[in-house]
């Protein structure tokens, strides 16, 4: 916070810059830091007027970014690297989620004790970047599963139409709990512990903006990270900001779930880096993703870290 007030004092006369942030999913606690940065006036103090646009099914935030529909976008590292490889001029400005929240979930009574036992079984997989890790996992394990396209619903798993389904630690895992499934009924395979810890949510911008207006980028990233820090300090306030948007969008969610997601997200964002190291990209994780993507044939060649990861100069006094 102190950083912010100083930041604000440094450029009191600056006109408000209008920027648009495209999220890669619907409003939920996964993005709480951005909401709080807005609601607590952190963006305004930084001379920014931020329009936060929710994502959802059928919305590709990074594609929107590449098409110039927004100034900044959130998205997964793996997907961003693919787009970079395909020539989209986007750069990573801050890496938020350090630990992969992606899970493969099955019921204990399905008797699947190891990944190998999924061979030939139906496994619900999301499309796009979400299936990179599972596919790498299956390939590494030398098994072939019947991929079943997965939607937001966990009904296929609950109805036993699939043997295992994808899920996010901060979302579906808890949704199952809220559907009456006890945690100890579930068996969970965490990619972060299976040698496939892909960093997930990051803040991206176009290379051109980064080059032409490093000050704007710096202010936006610093304010967003400050929003996250404030979120960790005042989770109730953050939850309020989340529920305000959830309610306005008439999303089928509840405060209990969002609180859980907020806690989980904090865990994932501060993993290893703590609150002070927010936004850093681990080169080791980056090279892992590079290796797996190349291995999967999703990248023609490894993405160069220096050109891809360009955190803007932070306006710290």
């Amino acid at each position: 916070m102190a950083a912010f007030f100083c930041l604000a004092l440094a450029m009191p006369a600056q006109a408000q810059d209008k920027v648009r942030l495209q999220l890669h999913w619907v409003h939920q606690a996964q993005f709480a830091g951005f909401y709080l940065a807005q609601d607590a006036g952190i963006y305004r103090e930084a001379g920014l007027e931020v329009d936060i646009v929710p994502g959802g099914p059928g919305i590709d935030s990074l594609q929107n970014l590449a098409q110039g529909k927004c100034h900044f976008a959130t998205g997964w590292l793996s997907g961003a690297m693919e787009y970079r490889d395909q020539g989209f001029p986007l750069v990573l400005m801050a890496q938020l989620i350090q630990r992969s929240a992606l899970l493969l979930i099955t019921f204990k009574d399905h008797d699947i004790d190891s990944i190998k036992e999924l061979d030939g079984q139906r496994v619900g997989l999301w499309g796009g970047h979400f299936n990179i890790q599972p596919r790498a996992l299956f390939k590494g394990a030398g098994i072939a599963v019947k991929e079943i396209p997965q939607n937001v619903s966990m009904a296929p798993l609950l109805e036993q139409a699939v043997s295992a389904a994808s899920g996010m630690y901060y979302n579906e895992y808890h949704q199952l709990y809220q559907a009456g499934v006890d945690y100890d009924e579930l068996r969970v395979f965490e990619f972060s512990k299976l040698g496939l810890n892909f960093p997930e949510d990051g803040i991206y911008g176009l290379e051109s903006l980064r080059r032409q207006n490093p000050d704007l980028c710096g202010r936006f990233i610093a304010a967003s990270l400050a929003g996250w820090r404030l979120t960790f300090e005042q989770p109730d306030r953050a939850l309020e900001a989340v529920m305000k948007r959830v309610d306005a969008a008439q999303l089928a969610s509840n405060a209990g779930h969002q609180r859980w997601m907020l806690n989980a997200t904090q865990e994932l964002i501060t993993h290893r880096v703590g609150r002070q190291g927010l936004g850093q990209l681990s080169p080791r994780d980056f090279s892992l993703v590079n290796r797996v993507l190349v291995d999967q044939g999703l990248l023609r060649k490894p993405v160069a870290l220096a050109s891809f990861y360009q955190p803007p100069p932070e306006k710290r006094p």
Partner: protein
Amino acid sequence: MRPHVLKLRARFVIFVLAGVGLVSLAMAALTFFESQEALIESRQEQLFELAQGEAAELGRRLIRVSQATEALANSLEVLPTPTPENLDQLIKRYISSTRRIYGIAVAYAPHAYETDRKLFSPYFHRSPKGIVASCVDSEDYNYPRHDWFLLPTLLGKSLWTEPYFGTGGGIVMATYCTPLIQDGKIKGAVVSDISLQELGRDVDNLSVGRFGYAFLISRQGSFLAAPNPKLVMRETIFSLAEEMQRPDLRLLGQRMIRGGAGVERVKDWHMKEYVWLAFAPVHEVGWSLGVLVPEREVLAPAYALAQRQAIAAAAGLLGLGLVIWLLVMGLTRPLQRVAGAAKRLASGDLSAKVEDVRPGDEVGDLAQSFNTMVDDLNSYVHELTATTAAKERIESELDLARQIQMSILPRTYPAFPEHEGFDLFAKTHPAREVGGDFYDFFFVEGDRLVFVVGDVSGKGVPAALFMTVSRTLIKNAAAHHPDPVEALEEVNAQILPENEMCMFVTVFYGLYEPGTGRLFYASAGHPSPLLRRADGQVEQIPTTGGMAIGVFDKMGLTRGEIVMQPDETLLVFTDGLDEAVNAANQQYGQARAKSWLASTEVTDAPVMIDRLVQEQRAFTGDLEQFDDLTLLVFRRKE
């Protein structure tokens, strides 16, 4: 003793009311708890039946939907590759045939309808404008990954989806989906939507008492219908349990979504009160219908009953209190009357009587006894008054008699002023008003002096009368026969024949010759007088024999004779002197009289008598003496 704080009346009322109140309280509590139990039991059954009945009814409605869907799927199985127009007509017909169906889609698996057509799924739904088509087979929507297509085709069986917002139909819906099988292969799915809003209305309209309501949850615990619209499609019973940290609610939810049925007493969602919750599965869809009623409503009749009982008991107690009050009034009012009468009586009002007390009971007996007592007391007092009056009359008469008696005894001093040769005085102290002692002195035959002291047996009026007679007779006899023995025998002869009362009298009779100093004397049973010599020596004069007058005709009297020297004093006394006793029952005795007489220095007869009486009274104290006392002192001067 500590006095009672409360009157009898208040005590009665309080004790009886407290007792009766306690008993009725206990009875009321018993009734209350029993009726409470009975109410809960019956309400439980009723609630459970309601839940089951409504769940079954919901199921029946949904079965109509699923049956229609199956029928459509069946007809498509045998219809080889219908044209899109045929499909549209078929779908519209099925929609209109079943009221509950909101929309129907026939969704083909990718490339299953036409090889070069990836997605094909005609969809129609109801709208204010009638049954209209809507697009669900866009690339954006990508139906093959939605539950309603995925589940039946993957599982090869029919099922209901979880409720969801149907983009094509524009409402929150649940969908019955059944696989479309042609030539033994799953070619797609035939699905029918129902409106959840409509369903929710049915549930909301369910009447469950005044404060009760019904709710519906899905297989995943989501609220499909609930009075609070914020719950619907957003919260699950488990999210509520998580937020409120209610493991009991989570367990209940699990029982519900697993097809359980039952009745439970739980805290409601808001943790405000206990509710009775009955739940039953809607078998067709695997949902669960719950109906709940606040316990206060279930128990309201018990409370109402308790209230009525309390009012009745209060009225009863009031009435009882009144009755007791009146009853005790009936008891205590006569008692108060008796007490009042007793108080008046105590203050001296002998007319005090207890009026207006009905006889027959204990208080009546008491009043009667009191009245009898007052009567007795009155008659006693009257008697006493009469007796007292009589006594007073007698006393005054006696007083008169005494005066008369005294007046007949010579009381002048000096008795014979013309005779200076002797000093003579006598005095009698009757033990009662009148006495039997007497004395007398008179001259006979000119110059001889007779002095007499007598003591009649007995006391009081008879003795006094007898004494009067004796004295008169002695005086008469002495006039004719001055000799002591003759005079006394004459008197005895006169008294004896008429002495029916067998009274007798002892008499000392002295005949003194002033010139010579000679004293002739006789004693009819009388103690011998004491003689004090001039030198102060005291002795009894020689005793002469003889019986008292009035006993036998032969008295055996002898005559004594002494010569009194000048300055010698003779003391004649009755037994009232020596036989007087003190408190220690010691007689005064002649010895004390003698020594007093020896030592006294007074010589005048009246003074001597007074002193001796004083001396004797000093010995006896205040003790009442029963004998008359008579003293006569005779002193020769020259």
